[in-house]
């Protein structure tokens, strides 16, 4: 993290030196915009990292501002009022976290709906602030807020804002590079896949939202003494909208992006709005342009410059990762009489099958037999209306991908769904961290260096995995299948569900994958269930075959028994009835 400290120090020095160059008037203006930049950082963390956009962020700015203003009016003379300001910020953060948990755990997962909910909540807050005269001063606002004790003049406030901004930038920079940042970026790419690795994605997103609330709260808490006045407009739509525009134009993926956005667009607006009518039109057009063509914003242009800065990370020594927390015994799975339907169509019809010992099982059957649906039922995507599933003897009720991953059940999908915009290393680490890490681990840098014997062995078999910095999207289809299989194996599951793992692979690649599956069975002692259409593969790999037909188990046994079973023959070759 040395480079981060260096960069933050450089930023701080730059900020502190500015008033010397620009004078008192600018110190006051900039101070306010630094506060906005802190709030904008929060928006960028949600949007650029975790992939959801809060459209009503001014709610938290305003809340902290009102709290801080009230505290200052009440106890403004006391020296300890400084300590209350962080509380105001934390209150805003706590509210954000709670709201995030409630919303993300609720039904609507889709991004646009979250944005509109936050917008609606902030509008509601505006209504409250506008009419609750006794507490907020209503339409006229909270007036006569004293400045912070000990700070006089515009410059002092400026320095406080500058320091706060530099600290916020450092904090965000740290989180972006920490495992938490990687997890957020993975959620933005494919939230469902992250849940399949056993992460509570709602909690992770709520943490990001909570962080943004704290940052907005810091801005609000310092706003009150700086401006001396808090009006309901602060909570209103205009600031929330501006924050989004500043972040979009400045760049939401880079930590300095929002700062740039606020400084360039915000300050320019303040100056130019008076002079040209057309400035707002230009900003609006620029925003649309950024959304359409330049989602990285101005910050994306910074990327080449970043490489010039000191502090390039050296190659790191690997650390031995802790063991997974899931139980290590061989898994037993019993599906009994499970039925599931979607409307009129019977997808699973009193399906019963059991896996009692480790081995390689194949699940075959004609189209619509219910093979993928069986997997979906196990991981909770398809709800069973009757029957029971027992994992290790315990009944599985209301399964979710997250819960199953925690019990050592891994799944690999037919179409490779690796995280394309993350590097191979990050992809593998996300898998590695699952089931072995807690919140604290996500904040420290050490887990980025973890390694396990399984991962090392996979790297040995597939040398391309060693090229850790390469983006997953740059891999060929076959390499992506292998990467995803490796990710599934690295979690050291007890039960692995593979859906056509060799789809689209060449003959050679298929042979390699088969070898890995056998090796995994031998080394990890796991049970693998493979859905396959390729009979050659089934003949070579399967120790036991389940044949499904019309949602039910038609036959089971070893390959020879299946081949000679007349019912199986009838299903595959006989005329459709």
């Amino acid at each position, binding site marked *: 993290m040395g480079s981060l400290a260096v960069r933050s120090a450089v930023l701080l020095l730059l900020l502190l030196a500015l008033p010397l160059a620009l004078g008192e008037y600018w110190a006051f203006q900039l101070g306010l915009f630094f506060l906005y930049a802190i709030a904008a950082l929060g928006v960028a963390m949600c949007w650029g990292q975790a992939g959801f*956009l809060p459209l009503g962020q001014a709610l938290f700015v305003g809340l902290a501002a009102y709290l801080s203003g009230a505290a200052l009016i009440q106890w403004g003379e006391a020296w300890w009022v400084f300590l209350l300001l962080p509380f105001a910020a934390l209150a805003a953060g706590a509210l954000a976290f709670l709201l995030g948990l*409630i*919303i993300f755990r*609720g*039904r*609507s997962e*889709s*991004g*646009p*709906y979250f*944005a*509109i*909910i936050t*917008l*609606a*909540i902030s*509008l*509601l807050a505006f*209504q*409250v602030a*506008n*009419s609750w005269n006794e507490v907020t001063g209503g339409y006229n606002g909270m007036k006569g807020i004293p400045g912070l004790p000990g700070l006089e003049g515009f410059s002092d406030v400026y320095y406080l804002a500058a320091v706060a901004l530099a600290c916020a930038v450092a904090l965000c920079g740290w989180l972006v590079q920490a495992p938490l940042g990687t997890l957020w970026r993975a959620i933005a790419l494919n939230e469902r896949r992250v849940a399949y690795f056993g992460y509570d994605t709602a909690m992770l997103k709520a943490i990001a939202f909570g962080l943004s609330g704290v940052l907005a709260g810091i801005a609000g808490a310092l706003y009150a003494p700086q401006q001396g006045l808090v009006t309901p407009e602060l909570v209103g*739509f205009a600031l929330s*909208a501006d924050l*989004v*525009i500043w972040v*979009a134009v400045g760049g939401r993926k880079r930590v300095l992006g929002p700062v740039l956005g606020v400084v360039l667009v915000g300050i320019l607006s303040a100056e130019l709005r008076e002079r040209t*009518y*057309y400035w*707002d*039109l230009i*900003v*609006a*057009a620029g*925003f*649309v342009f950024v*959304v*359409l063509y330049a*989602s990285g914003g101005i910050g994306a242009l910074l990327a080449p410059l970043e490489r010039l800065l000191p502090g390039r990370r050296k190659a790191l020594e690997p650390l031995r990762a802790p063991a997974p927390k899931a139980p290590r015994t061989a898994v037993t799975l019993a599906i009994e009489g499970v039925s599931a339907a979607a409307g009129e169509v019977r997808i699973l019809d009193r399906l019963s099958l059991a896996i009692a010992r480790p081995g390689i099982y194949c699940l075959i059957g004609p189209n619509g037999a219910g093979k993928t649906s069986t997997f979906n039922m196990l991981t909770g995507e398809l709800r069973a209306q009757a029957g029971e599933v027992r994992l290790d003897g315990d009944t599985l009720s209301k399964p979710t991908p997250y819960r199953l991953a925690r019990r050592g059940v891994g799944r690999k999908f037919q179409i490779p769904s690796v995280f394309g915009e993350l590097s191979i290393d990050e992809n593998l680490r996300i898998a590695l961290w699952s089931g072995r890490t807690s919140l604290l681990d996500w904040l420290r840098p050490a887990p980025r260096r973890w390694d396990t014997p399984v991962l090392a062995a996979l790297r040995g078999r597939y040398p391309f995995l060693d090229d850790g910095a390469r983006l997953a999207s740059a891999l060929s289809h076959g390499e992506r299948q292998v990467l995803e299989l490796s990710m599934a194996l690295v979690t050291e599951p007890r039960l692995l569900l593979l859906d056509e793992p060799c789809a689209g692979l060449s003959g050679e690649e298929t042979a390699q994958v088969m070898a890995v599956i056998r090796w995994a069975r031998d080394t990890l002692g796991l049970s693998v269930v493979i859905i396959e259409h390729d009979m050659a593969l089934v003949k070579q790999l399967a120790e036991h075959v389940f044949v499904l037909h019309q949602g039910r188990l038609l036959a089971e046994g070893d390959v020879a028994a299946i081949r000679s079973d007349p019912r199986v023959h009838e299903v595959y070759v006989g005329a459709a009835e």
Partner: protein
Amino acid sequence: MDPLLVTQALNVLYEVVTLAVIVLGLAIVFGLLGVMNLAHGEFIALGAYVAYVCQSLGLPYLAAVPAAIAACALLALPVERFLIRPLYDRPFDTLLATWGLSLFMRKAIEIGFGGGYKSLKIPVSDSVLVLGAPFPAYRVLLMALCAVLIAALLLWYRRSVAGARVKAMVGNRELAQAVGIRTDRLARDTFVVGLCFAGLAGVMVAPLVSVQPYMGLDYVLRSFFVLVVGGLGSPLGLLSGAAAIGGVESAMSALVDRTAGYSTVLLIAIFFLWRRPHGIFGRS
């Protein structure tokens, strides 16, 4: 019948019916096509301002109708081509791009017409007796027009071939292409029609509301709430959403005050967004 009660009921009915017409355009664009058009309100505003211009030029009020439709259609075509079509599978970015468009349009209107309120003369200024209670004639006319418009649109959607093709495209895009429907063009035309309805709604309500550059904001938010609560893609959803939102707001405004009315609407919308984003009649 107690004339006061009749007036109250008529007021509520008026709110609901006009709300339905305001939402109509977004019901087509968002409810059918799935395009989150945050500039919907600005197209309503455009219609209102076109009406203002027509009236200032001394033209009969009806002239505003084709003028507004033309203006909206002319603007809708490049918007569909450059903003909507490239972002069809990125609903989030559509939200942002149309929001940027709304900012742009708002500012353009402000530059062109100034930031103040414009007031239009009501085309029909008498008052009529409805069930013994006096009620402004224009409002009665408006309600009748809205009802006719909505009924006609529903009928067209249910019975006409074009309506069936839109339904086909919305329900099963690939099969629609397989049978030969040019889905790109059909989606574009549907989008333009939706925006023209927004303009038409603007012409209709302009004499009765305050026409100012920021009028669109209110409309677009309310429209989203109506669709979220009522359900997307279903005419019944539109009507029930308008009834719920419009009814609750006017009732609460009458009982308490405007703030309470709006706040209640917000609470209902938040609840549905959180728990039942498909609304009362939408499909999950």
